[in-house]
Each structure stands twice: as structure tokens, then as C-alpha cells.
């Protein structure tokens, strides 16, 4: 499956990009994260949440193919 991942704030600083397309053959968000941890080792130490289709989702969620985003701690206001 071809998926688009968006990176923000401190996470984008690590990935050095705001967005990328990846080939993903697993099922769960947690598996996608494993794939990303291999690609971006420092991600492992970072605090972030995952949004799919603009909603925060737990790691056990099925990857639907919709837009996925890695969101570091919020700092609005």
C-alpha cells in the first residue's frame, strides 16, 4: 500500500521533510511506526501522537491508507 505521511515540528526536524510517500505492506499503525523507526532512528526517543484521517488514533489501529501524521506535543496559544 502506498501511503502519505506528514511530519510536524520537532518530528519534521528529524525526518528533514514535512511529508513523504512510503510503500507499506503491514496492517497496523504500530507496524508502520516500526518501519519509520528503522528509517529515522532518533524518532524512537521522541514524544509524538499519530493521526489518521485527521483524528488521533492508537497504535493498534488498522492503517486505512488515508493521510497519516506524526504530531509532537501541542503548543497552541
Amino acid at each position, binding site marked *: 500500500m502506498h501511503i502519505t505521511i*506528514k511530519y*510536524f*515540528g*520537532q518530528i519534521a526536524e528529524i525526518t528533514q521533510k514535512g511529508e513523504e510517500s512510503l510503500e507499506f505492506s503491514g496492517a497496523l499503525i504500530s507496524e508502520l511506526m516500526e518501519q519509520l523507526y528503522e528509517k529515522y532512528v532518533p524518532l524512537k526517543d521522541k514524544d509524538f501522537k499519530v*493521526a489518521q484521517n*485527521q483524528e488521533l488514533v492508537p497504535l493498534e489501529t488498522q492503517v486505512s491508507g488515508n493521510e497519516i*501524521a506524526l*504530531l*509532537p*506535543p*501541542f*503548543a*497552541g*496559544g
Partner: protein
Amino acid sequence: MKDKKIKNVFRQGAISSEFIGESIYKHQTKTSIGAHNIFLGQVRADIIDDKTVSAIEYTAYEDMANAKFHDIREAAFEKFELTCMHIYHSLGTVKAGEICLFVFVSSPRRKVVFEALEFIVEAIKADVPVFGKEIFEDESHQWKVNT
């Protein structure tokens, strides 16, 4: 009063005091309003490890953020008897002393505005994907985290 369309809450750069003044002025025609409550978030020149914050550079997951702002609006109108509500948040660079968040609620009665404003501001801080890079005077930076 409900508002179904998702608005763009973001403004480029700081929110000016003139803009806030004009926004207050526009409410003078709404003569059912008895109480306004306004929250302003201002960038602090915090000193961290001897370095002073000179600005915050805001970015956001804009689509999700605007959807969340919309949800917060809807929830607030549902929960509280509000006449109107406005939210503006900065993107890009906001210098220390400048305003980055402007939340404005109005109601016939005062009790409602206090509760509503706090509800909205807390929800913004907790639920909206906005990110802040605190820029120090020596151009180094750290990432802001809401507490």
C-alpha cells in the same frame, strides 16, 4: 447560534491590538450582548538556561487544526448560551510581547462567558495540533510544550 462551515482560524504573524479593538467595535451593533470575555495569549520572553526567548515560530497541521477549532466552537455553542465566538491563532513568527492567540466570546450574561472562555482555551491548548519553536536571541531554539 451554530456555524457549520469550517473557518480558517490562522493568521500570518502576530495578532495586532488594532485588530482586537476593531473586533470589539463590531460587536456594538449586537445589543443583546451584556458581557464579553477575551483571552489573549502573548509570547513570553522566558529565560531558559540563561538564554532568552525572542520569538515563537508557529506551525500547524492546518487542516486538522481548523477542524479541531471547528469542533471546539460547536461544542462551546452547544454547552453555553453564547451570542458569538471568535478564535484567531498566529502562524509563523510572533515576537516576545506580541499576541499569538485571540479568543473572544460574548453572551447576554456574564456567568456564561467565564465558563465558556476557559473551556475553549483549555480545549485549544489540549486538542489543536499547533507547534511552537521557541527561538532564542542567539538563534538556537527549543520546542514548546503546553502544560
